[in-house]
């Protein structure tokens, strides 16, 4: 299998995630879209690792995974603390701050 296709797949996944962040309204779904983007980055990293013939890309994917996990924890904590007060995870309801 041509590894270049995996780069294309990664780009497609990244785009799906980015579009999802822009059009969805639920904070949890937004968050999952961001995770999709991070994992697209991981896929690209390991693919380039294979193409370049170095292991660096795979190690970098590990770092991205760990950072993503830390991000999940902090993000969920913030979303939960808002949700417990408002009973809603829609980002449209978070509208106290504007002009």
């Amino acid at each position, binding site marked *: 299998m041509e590894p270049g296709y995996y780069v294309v797949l990664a780009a497609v996944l990244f785009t799906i995630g980015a579009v999802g962040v822009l059009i969805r309204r639920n904070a949890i779904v937004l968050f999952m879209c961001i995770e999709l983007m*991070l994992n697209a*980055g991981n896929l690209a990293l390991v693919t380039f690792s294979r193409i370049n013939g170095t292991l660096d*890309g795979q190690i970098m994917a590990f*770092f991205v995974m760990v950072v993503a996990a*830390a991000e999940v924890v*902090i993000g969920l904590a913030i979303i939960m603390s808002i949700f417990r*007060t408002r009973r809603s995870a829609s980002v449209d309801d*978070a509208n106290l701050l*504007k002009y």
Partner: protein
Amino acid sequence: MNGFTIATPAQVLAIDVRLPDLDYAAMAPMLVLFGAACLGVLVDAFAPRQSRHTIQFALSFIALTVALLAVIREARVGSRELTADVALAIDGPTLFLQGTLAVLGIVALLLVGERALEKGGPFVSQAAIPVGSEADRRQAREEGATEVFPLTLFALSGMMLFVAANDLLTMFVALEVFSLPLYLLCALARRRRLVSQEAALKYFLLGAFASAFFIFGMALLYGFAGTVSFGGIHDAALLATTSPLLLFTGLAMVAVGLLFKIAAVPFHVWTPDVYQGAPTSVTAFMAACTKVAAFGGLLRVLYVAFDRARWDIEPVIGTIAILTMLVGAILAVTQTDIKRLLAYSSIANAGYLLVGALAFSKEGLSSAMFYLAAYGFTVIAAFAVITLVRDDDGEATHLSRWAGLGREAPLVAGVFTFLMLAFAGIPLTSGFTSKFAVFGAALGVGEAWPVALVIVGVVTSMILAFPYLRVVVMMWLSEPAEQSPTVAIPGAFTSAALMVGVLATLLLGVFPSPVLDLADRAAEFIR
């Protein structure tokens, strides 16, 4: 899809283990802060409740002082080296910015640790308790969380790592190490907790979105160069055997991640909301230190990794700089909340800093570094004043409440007037010298883009002077509103922070040459 050669698995698996050389003296500032932050976590776990605040503040203060001394020691030794393989670059800009971060960190820490203005301090006791519940009313009387100190230290250690990072992976890890504590700090306000949590949510979602772009950009650049070290990317861009498509797409996506952190238009939308919603001491910390760290990283990426692509990126980043200055200045005029006003002013200042960065010269680099230091002190002092103007509901940040403040508290209003004049760039303040240095560096290059940027910079500075002066006029010439806010008597910490900020703003305006010389001598990246 063609042209890639594929390594066989056997080649991939041939690992050659080489342990990196670590220069512990050069890494000391970051290690000290990180170690102290870990200790702080243990203090919060095991120390008795009533003594935590004292221990934590002392620990953070000592750690930052030691880190500053370690930076100074390293600077006196004059070390210029790559350490930890090539992951960290200890060079002039690193040391200058790390020193700036340590000093600004100490000043911001004074604001974070202040408890004289409000019983229990500006932070909530238990952030997990839902707003408006019975438990929330009970905790209103309790002491604030002391986790803010380890979080601040973690953020500062990440920032110091960020300005030293010499490859994209280290830079990414550092970016997250300083961003994640900041997201949490934003959510910890004692008053107006819903607004504070909303600020944290917005900052977090957009920040994570931007980091995803950074990662994908890093992956593409790794595909282009086969390495993520800045030197390697630079060399690969010189040879350019692979498609430049990967280089430019990767650069654009990495730039999105970095421009988000410096709040450049169109990646600025989080700034006003977060600056307004976060506890004011945290806003001061973010406005000063995040700007230093993020610009340090951006400067290194532009100057070290992509200087060969300079002609291609100049129009793009130049356009962003123009937009940043225009949007920041014009929207600042329409603001009615003092924290939002300063947020838009911070966006405009990011534009002026980009003018210096885009000079792509030694003068550009040194003037941008000087600007960062000068701006940091002024902005911390300005937010320190905001923490003082209060009413029953906490800080009174609406501009109409500030009317007639000059009669009620002439000293505080006088200090704020001075800071506003510094922001507006009046001579004899650091705002003038730093803008002068940045615009001068850009004009010194003598090319079309820098000159255009300077013209926009001067025009927007004049626009931006209007909102600042409006605040000043309001404070001194307007009639006070019926229920005017009281000006709290600053505690020792806030007074010290204010004093340092105002003195630095004045001294860097009147005798800027020692710091300018220092920045000038430091302004050389190693690759």
